[in-house]
């Protein structure tokens, strides 16, 4: 307890006398930043979860060139990949609210009136579009040999998709997906322009409340770096596990021979 108090006093001393950055104020508002980090993580995770669920069937339909569906999905991904996320969020939040029809519909009260839902919808549609496209690429890059082998074993289209095509495509898409996760996290700062108190929102709150230039942004930055560090770590573990067969061989000569010719 005493240690804690003296640490805070030390921070206060440094902040008032030495440092250009007010560490004491940051420490004092750390709980707000933690709450902001929670909002950021929540939005990112849910958008990725729903986006991933929607993207799988869409990518399969795209890769299979399903008549009718394929051009429609292409139009959807082109729209959401071809326009900035900020514009999409503004359109859903401020744009839809302009219409009395929308405001009087059953969707307004629980969903479209809430900034949280509007942002989640925008983020989900955006990440669905990106995930669909690179997953489609991954599906198309499954080697023909694997599919022929599955067919030779008598697997139906559905079984082939489930047991051969998709697992292979997921593995191949893993490195690209880590970028998508980080981009979605970075894109989530847009939540702060429609009043949500996400990490950046809290940073801007702190700057606005105390008329500061750096403290809020710096603290948010550190938090984002920690989160990105966690994400890249998780993906490295996942890649080790699922893409292990693609890694260059290590210590080859030390491995015991398991089979003799």
């Amino acid at each position, binding site marked *: 307890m005493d240690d804690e108090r003296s640490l805070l006093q030390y921070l206060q001393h440094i902040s008032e006398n030495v440092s250009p950055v007010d560490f004491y104020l940051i420490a004092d508002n750390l709980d707000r930043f933690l709450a902001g980090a929670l909002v950021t993580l929540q939005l990112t995770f849910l958008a990725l979860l729903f986006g991933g669920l929607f993207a799988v069937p869409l990518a399969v339909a795209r890769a299979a060139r399903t008549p009718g569906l394929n051009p429609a999905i292409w139009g959807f991904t082109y729209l959401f990949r071809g326009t900035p996320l900020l514009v999409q969020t503004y359109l859903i939040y*401020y744009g839809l*609210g*302009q219409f009395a029809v929308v*405001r009087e519909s059953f969707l307004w009260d629980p969903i479209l*009136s809430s*900034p949280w839902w509007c942002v989640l919808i925008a983020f989900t549609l955006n990440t669905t579009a990106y995930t669909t496209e690179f997953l489609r690429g991954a599906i198309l890059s499954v080697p023909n040999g694997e599919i022929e082998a599955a067919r030779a074993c008598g697997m139906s289209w559905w079984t082939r998709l489930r047991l051969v095509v998709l697992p292979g495509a997921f593995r191949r898409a893993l490195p690209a997906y880590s970028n998508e996760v980080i981009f979605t996290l970075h894109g989530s700062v847009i939540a702060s*322009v429609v*009043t949500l*108190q996400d990490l950046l*929102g809290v940073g*801007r*709150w702190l*700057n*606005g*409340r*105390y*008329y*500061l*230039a*750096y403290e809020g942004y710096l603290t948010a930055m550190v938090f984002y770096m920690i989160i990105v560090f966690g994400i890249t770590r998780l993906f490295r573990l996942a890649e080790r596990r699922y893409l292990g067969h693609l890694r260059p061989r290590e210590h080859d000569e030390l491995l015991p021979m398991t089979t003799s010719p």
Partner: protein
Amino acid sequence: MIIRKLVTLCIAGALTLSGAHVFAAEPLRIGVEGAYPPFSKKEADGSLSGFDIEIAEALCKQMGRECSLVEQEWDGMIPALIARKFDAIIASMSITDDRRKKVAFSEKYYATPTRFIARKGSDLELTASGLEGKKIGLLRGTTYQCFVEKHFPDADIMLYNTQEDVYADLVTGRLDAQVSNSIQAMDGLLNTEAGKDFAFIGDDLDDEACLGEGIGIAVRKNDMALADEFSAAILAIRENGAYQAVNDKYFAIDIYGN
């Protein structure tokens, strides 16, 4: 060793730069906003107009200085001043003690009351319990933020980047009420088609610690001479009628206050 020399050089360079004085020959850069009608707004052709803008021009003329206007979003105003993006802020900024820790102010150039606005017929009570859980919208980094956080800690405070965004969400019904400058709100909302169902609620807000002592011109703390120059110019244009001419163009009453 080389690195240490480089660092010393950099520091020396930075000191020289920060020590450089603003010469009278250089145009004075004024930070203004553009989303706060009728004090400042952007015309369709991109030019700025409004009370703040014209007062800035009148003051520069009075001071015999050439001025250039620099547009800046509200919540970055003070940081941008400190970072020398401009030399003074003429953007309806209230003079408060909190801000005095960061910047210096001229004497006020106007003073208007701050008030709540809600939908007509709203039964909101402006008490701590009356606003508990109610969504109150306001512009980020304003005196209103200080006021609402201090007096209505249990209200659900929603922070916006521009005053126009606050009005937009009040009109759609996302907000139960909003707080802002009453004169600005007349032009920005209440006298417009979108604002016809809205009205002031409660009296003029009163808390000098939060709401300040009127609207002044902010300069960097070490530019006190510039603040004094502005204060003298404000009094001068009050005397010679230039202030009145701008005032009457925008308002039916004299907004200088007492």
